[in-house]
């Protein structure tokens, strides 16, 4: 992975990297990706799953229940007047 690619990926991931970090991550990730090339030797499989064991949807009953501690949740979310506050953008 070259430095240009590291800068591009960092932008996508919302990371501001210093020049020093860009250089270091480029070298480290190049090493890591080179080691990963062994995967090219693994046979392709038609049939594979997103997880290690089967999962099926079992829906719980749709019962209305109070949240364990709504006051605490509101406090943690810094709710005000029934609204959840985000940062003020100026």
């Amino acid at each position: 992975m070259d430095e240009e690619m590291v800068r591009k990926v960092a932008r996508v991931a919302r990371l501001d990297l210093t020049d020093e970090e860009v250089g270091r991550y480029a070298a480290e990730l190049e090493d890591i990706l080179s080691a990963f090339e062994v995967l090219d030797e693994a046979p392709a499989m038609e049939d594979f799953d997103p997880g290690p064991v089967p999962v099926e949807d079992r829906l719980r009953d749709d019962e209305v229940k109070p949240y364990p501690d709504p006051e605490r949740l509101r406090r943690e979310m810094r709710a005000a007047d029934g609204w959840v506050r985000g940062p003020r953008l100026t």
Partner: protein
Amino acid sequence: MTGKDLATTVRLADERYRMFAEKLEDPLAYEGGHSFHFSAKDNLCSVEFQARAGSRILEGYNPPFDATAIKRLKEAGGLLIGKTNMDEFGFGSFGTNSDIGVPLNPFDTTRCCGGSSGGAGAAASVLDGHLSIGVSTGGSISCPASFCGVVGLVPTYGRVSRWGLIDYGNSLDKIGLLASSSDMIARYLPVISGPDALDPTSQVQPPLSIEGDVGSVAIPEEALAGLSDGVRKAFEEAVGRLEGMGVEVRRVAMPELRFALPAYYILATAEASTNLARYCGMRYGDIVEETDLGFNELFSQVRSKDLGNEAKRRILLGTFCRMVGLRDRYYIKALQVRKLVIQAYERQFREVDAVLTPTMPFVAPRLDEVEKMSALEAYHADFLTVPPNLAGLPHISLPCAYIDGLPAGMQLVAPHWEEGRLLSLAARWEREFQYRRPEGGA
């Protein structure tokens, strides 16, 4: 031990080994007539403590609820005495990637505890009758169990509800237990196991039974390459002891294992890079009240300041592997390899009850040695613990040797949902092999 004595023991142990991210400080809090005490890794939510997952970006996050595993242990009479330190979000094998400090190995405080559940390993090692909840994504229970000389059990993926866990890799994360011997784990694994409506992946599990045994094991030759001389010799002695207990040992080839490490790191970082997108200064931890930046600039600034070096590296790797044009080569190929590795284990399980390897290729390294490791060398240290984690298979690390006074573990892997037989073998092993506690104690 009275509650007050326990409070003193916990305080002194933490001063010496720094295993807690946060703990009960008030001695009165220990005087509740609880039947046992336990700790939880810092990436599990509880109402008493912050949940920081070892990261500065979650500083100040106080969960308003208990994780299911914590809730169930409390209901069974347990006292939650603290949250144990860990590598940031689980990103590490040595416990050294935490913003909260580095837990120290109770057998030698110049050495690491392992990771990422390093504090959990240390707490299980030094506190009598203690149960540590750990979390394993690629080896984060087995590794500290081996380095700290304790038993670490990782159940089948989905056995224990992940509700209340701060996700690292959703298709890989498994909540498990560490303790100084297997009886605590056999007693409390059934408590935390079982379906939970709040985690769909826990819903389709067969009942857990602590029975059956391991009468035969396969040792893959691939697991014996790259071991330190001390671990190789100690492991072969342990194999001899198992044979003496009547366990049949077969030497086999599992060439598919060489694909497990890259497949794991691709899946884990791809999932982590999406999971960590939520930490941007708006919802958790140090929430920004006012800014003159646009959203993207704000998010980038907060994340760059508050995420650690390893977290950034893994976010970059995972984001790269998911990018347009690369997804099939990396992410999809890794999913295919997971299936391949599961099939490789299933082939062995047609002939034997478990697959046996050392847990780690070396004993706990010194902290200065960890600092000198390259990223790739650090990732490669996981080559024995990653395959069962990638495959979602239950596994246990049992202390099997002491090399110059430092513990080393062996790891047994069983078929999906058959963790019970691992605990049966552990009980038999503990009648044959005497575990040691660290000399300094708590």
